[in-house]
Every structure is written in structure tokens, then in C-alpha cells.
């Protein structure tokens, strides 16, 4: 009796009432769908049995997973493309953004303008960016074909019609736009104790030495955060593909997200179970990635 009385206090009632809406929202938007894709990834569920997923049975439990990696060509393309995009954000976007942040941190004339301009591609809708690049790549009205014709007259490159080029077309519609990451790095650099720089100056360190020996080590945790965000973006890439290539030409620019959309929602051979299985894989891949990046950028010294 006593414990019961203690549990139903005014304070607990308040805690419960204040948490409830958040928990309900979490349940609807995240928990239920996440559990659902895990469960249905072990079922047979497509346009033939639209209403009721069928359990695959214990012997065939992982059939969907096995099929994705053995039979489904589009999935394999999507899987490797997504991995390539993740790697490209790590080797292109992060170093480029870091370089820009280090340059702007010296506060050269016009640094604020440059910083703000760099943020613009990140705050306008990616649908607009996608549409812009779709036009830029267009042979009839774009500019890439025209520019290529200056160097190789008559080459008439059509970025989106060529399997190899289309991948890079999608890549360049997002890979250099690290404005918000740059902003995060820049803010972190400005928060570094100025006396450290003073001391380095007294010791006669050059600009590059200061960057390498003071700024970079102190920037490491933030670089980790920014790297996680960028890698996630690469892994989840969808909008740019939907607007620029629609997975083409010949399904060469599928990403995991685009595969999930196409498989579960956007084609005639609706295969819900397989789409959800790909969703599970995408989710797990993201967790592995975050773990790896956190590990790589973890600072060894705790101070």
C-alpha cells in the first residue's frame, strides 16, 4: 500500500503526462515501423499476397537477405553505390570542408561572405538542388556538355546517359556542399583558447604548423561529429537520385534508399518484404558506420 501511494505522486503524474506525447510520437514514427521492418524481413510479402505477409518458416528464415545478396542485381548495385558514396564523403567532402574551415578561420577578407554563401546550398531544398543539376547536366540546355565541347570539340558528352558519368553526376550534386559542417568546424575553431595560439606565435610556429599541431587535434571530436553526419548523408542519399537520374541509366545509380523506394512503393512488382529487408540492412549499416567513425575519431586523452 505504501509503495503504491509513493508511486502515484503528483511529481510522477507530471513526469508521465509530460513524457507521454513524446513516447507516443516515438512509437508511431520510429518504434512501430522499425519493429515492423524487422519482422516482415522474415516473411514472403509482395503484390501476390498484398494483405497478409506470410512467414517464411524457420528453414528459410533468411531467404530475403540471401536473395538480396545473390539474385537481386539492383540491390547489389545500390549497396555498392551507397558504400562508394559514404567513402567519397569521407575522402572528398570532409577534407574539402576542413580545408575551407581552416582557411576561413584565419579570417581573410570576405570570410564571412564565403561562409554564408557556402551554407546556402545546405539550407535550400535538395529537391531544388537536384532539379538545378538535372538541368546543368542536360545536353540540350545544360552547361557541362558545352564546356566539354570546348576541350574536346564534338564530344557531346551526355552526363546522365552514360552509366559511368551518371554516378559522378549524382556525386557532384552534393559532395562539395559541406557548408553546415564547415560552420560547425569554424565555430569549434573559434572556441579554442586564444592563448594557445599566442603561445605558438611566440614560439615562432608557422600558420600550417599551428593548424597541424594545435587546431587539428583539438578539432578531432567535432570532425568526428561532422564525419558521422556526412557519412549518414552518403548512406541515405535519395533526393538527388530521384530528381537527377531516377536510378538510371540502366539502374546504374541506385542507392539503398532509392532501392527501398522502388522495391516497396515505386514499381509494379511490389515486393514489400524485400524493401523492408533492405531497410533493415540500411539501418544496421548505419549503426556499424557510426560505430566505426566514432572509434576512428575518438580522442585518446580525456581532459
Amino acid at each position: 500500500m505504501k509503495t503504491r501511494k509513493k508511486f502515484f505522486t503528483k511529481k510522477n503524474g507530471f513526469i508521465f503526462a509530460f513524457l507521454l506525447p513524446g513516447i507516443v510520437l516515438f512509437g508511431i514514427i520510429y518504434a512501430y515501423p522499425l519493429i515492423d521492418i524487422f519482422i516482415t524481413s522474415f516473411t514472403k510479402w509482395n503484390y501476390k499476397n498484398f494483405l497478409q505477409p506470410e512467414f517464411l518458416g524457420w528453414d528459410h528464415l533468411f531467404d530475403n537477405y540471401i536473395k538480396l545478396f545473390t539474385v537481386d542485381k539492383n540491390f547489389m548495385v545500390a549497396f555498392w553505390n551507397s558504400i562508394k558514396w559514404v567513402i567519397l564523403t569521407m575522402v572528398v567532402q570532409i577534407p574539402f570542408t576542413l580545408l575551407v574551415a581552416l582557411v576561413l578561420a584565419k579570417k581573410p577578407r570576405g570570410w564571412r561572405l564565403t561562409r554564408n554563401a557556402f551554407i546556402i546550398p545546405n539550407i535550400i531544398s535538395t529537391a531544388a538542388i537536384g532539379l538545378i543539376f538535372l538541368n546543368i547536366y542536360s545536353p540540350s540546355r545544360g552547361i557541362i556538355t558545352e564546356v566539354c565541347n570546348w576541350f574536346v570539340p564534338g564530344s557531346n558528352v551526355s552526363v546522365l546517359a552514360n552509366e559511368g558519368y551518371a554516378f559522378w553526376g549524382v556525386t557532384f550534386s552534393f559532395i562539395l556542399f559541406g557548408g553546415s559542417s564547415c560552420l560547425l568546424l569554424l565555430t569549434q575553431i573559434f572556441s579554442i583558447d586564444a592563448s594557445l595560439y599566442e603561445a605558438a606565435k611566440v614560439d615562432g610556429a608557422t600558420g600550417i604548423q599551428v593548424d597541424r599541431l594545435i587546431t587539428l587535434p583539438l578539432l578531432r571530436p567535432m570532425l568526428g561529429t561532422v564525419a558521422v553526419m556526412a557519412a549518414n548523408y552518403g548512406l541515405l542519399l535519395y533526393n538527388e537520385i530521384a530528381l537527377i537520374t531516377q536510378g538510371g541509366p540502366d539502374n546504374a545509380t541506385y542507392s539503398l534508399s532509392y532501392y527501398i523506394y522502388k522495391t516497396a512503393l515505386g514499381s509494379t512488382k511490389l515486393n514489400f518484404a524485400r524493401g523492408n529487408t533492405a531497410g533493415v540492412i540500411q539501418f544496421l549499416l548505419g549503426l556499424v558506420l557510426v560505430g566505426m567513425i566514432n572509434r576512428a575519431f575518438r580522442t585518446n586523452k580525456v581532459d
Partner: protein
Amino acid sequence: MKKNSIGQTTTGKRVAGSIGKYFIMLVVLFISVYPILWVFLSSFKKDPGGLSLPTQWVFDGYITIFTKLNIQTYFLNSFIVTIISTFISVLIVSMSAYISARMQFKGKGLVTLMFTTTLFIPSISISFPIYRLLGDLGLKDTRTGLILIYSGLGIAITFFILRSYFQTIPKEMEEAAMMDGCGYTKTFFRIIVPIAKPGLATAAIMAFLNNWNEFYFASILIKSKDKMTIPALLGQFTTAYSKNLNGMFSAIIVAVVPTIIIFCMLSEVFVKSLTAGAVKG
């Protein structure tokens, strides 16, 4: 560590250094501004596209999208969906974040973990169950359905920003209010919310931006044209309007310019918002 005195750095090196700096800045400016500028100039051409400047300025595209396409409708939809969902998510998450920041109770760790892990759940991987759930609720192809999804999508970021903001508010504030006989709920809405306004504004700006630009759910859920948001409308241009090039180029400009103007006016606020929660000063 090598020690060079500053005096030894030759002027040549320094000049090369600053040329390098300005070159990088120019590259950044070019890639950030040129694509939009190109679309802007093209939108006035009789034959949109190409590298040249317009020889003859044509305003057909803009006239079409305001008169025939009724872009106002899409703006209104975007506004309704974005504002309501931003309000709901900031309200709900601020309540949870407050509890997580301030109260001691069993299962607190679990609740906090729950909100933070949403950051790692990709919305597209779980989109099919959400799509079906909305169908069951009769919310497919409705703005209400979109509002429901958007209210939940940004939970993690809002939670991070608000939780860390609430933690900076001194506990004495609440204690004093409690002494004066304010209940918990009243204390939160009357005392804490006004103090936390800057944090709430930051969270709201982030949520607003994300919801305003959201494309995936808008494009799969909304099929009727009169309910589409601006990003969903832009998605239509890949096929439906590709014949009306002036219209397409003008629509891109009309879609992005408000964001850019607001950003230019409030750039410092934006800069603060975008870095909030992540940077320890």
C-alpha cells in the same frame, strides 16, 4: 616540432599562401552561388540554358507559375504543414527534454536513449510501414498525415538542443517558483519556457528548415496537386513540366529565393542555430 621564426617566412611564401587562400574561397563562392545564378539568368531567356547571358529578357516563366501554376497554393501548403509540424514537435519534445534534463525517475536512461537513437534510424528504411500506417489511419494524401510525420522526423535534433539548453538554466528558478506555490506544469510553462526562448527558437529554426525542405515523404504521400508542398512540386518538374522550361527555371528560383532572403537577413541567428547543441564553447 620545428621552430621557424616568423621573420624567416619569405614574402614569396606568404603571397603564395594568400593566393591559395583566396583561390579556395573563390572556389567555394563559385560552387555555392553559380548554380543558382545560372538558373536565375536562364529563367529570363527565351531559350533557357547554355552559358550565354540573356539577349532578350523574357518574364513568361514567372507569369506562368503565378497565374497558371498557382505556386501560391504550394507555398501555402508548405507553410501550413511546416508551421504546424514545427510547433507540435517543439512543444512535445520540449516537454520530454525538460523531464529528461531535470527530473529523477526510474527509466530515465531508457527514455533519453530512446530519443537520441532516433538520430540513427533512417527515415527511408522505415518509410514503408509509415506509409501503410497512414493508409490505415486514412491519412494518405492528406496534409494532416504529412504534419504527423514531420512532427516526429526531427525528434533527435530538437531533443539534443533543448535538453542541453534546459540544463543550463539554474535549478533555483524552479525551486523559487515551487516555493511560491506553482505546480510542475505551471512552472514549466510560466517560468522555464520564457527563459528557454533562445533555445526553443534555435530548435524551431532547425525543425522549420528540415520540414520546409522535406522531399521524400511529401513526394510519396501526396498525390493530389492541390495539397503538394513546394519540394513535391519541384519533383513534378522532372517529368510533367519539362516542356515548359521557363516555368521550371522560374519555379526553382521562386522556391529557393525566400529561404535565401530570410537567411541573408537573419544570417547570425541561423549561424547560431545551426551550431547549437553541437559546439561546446
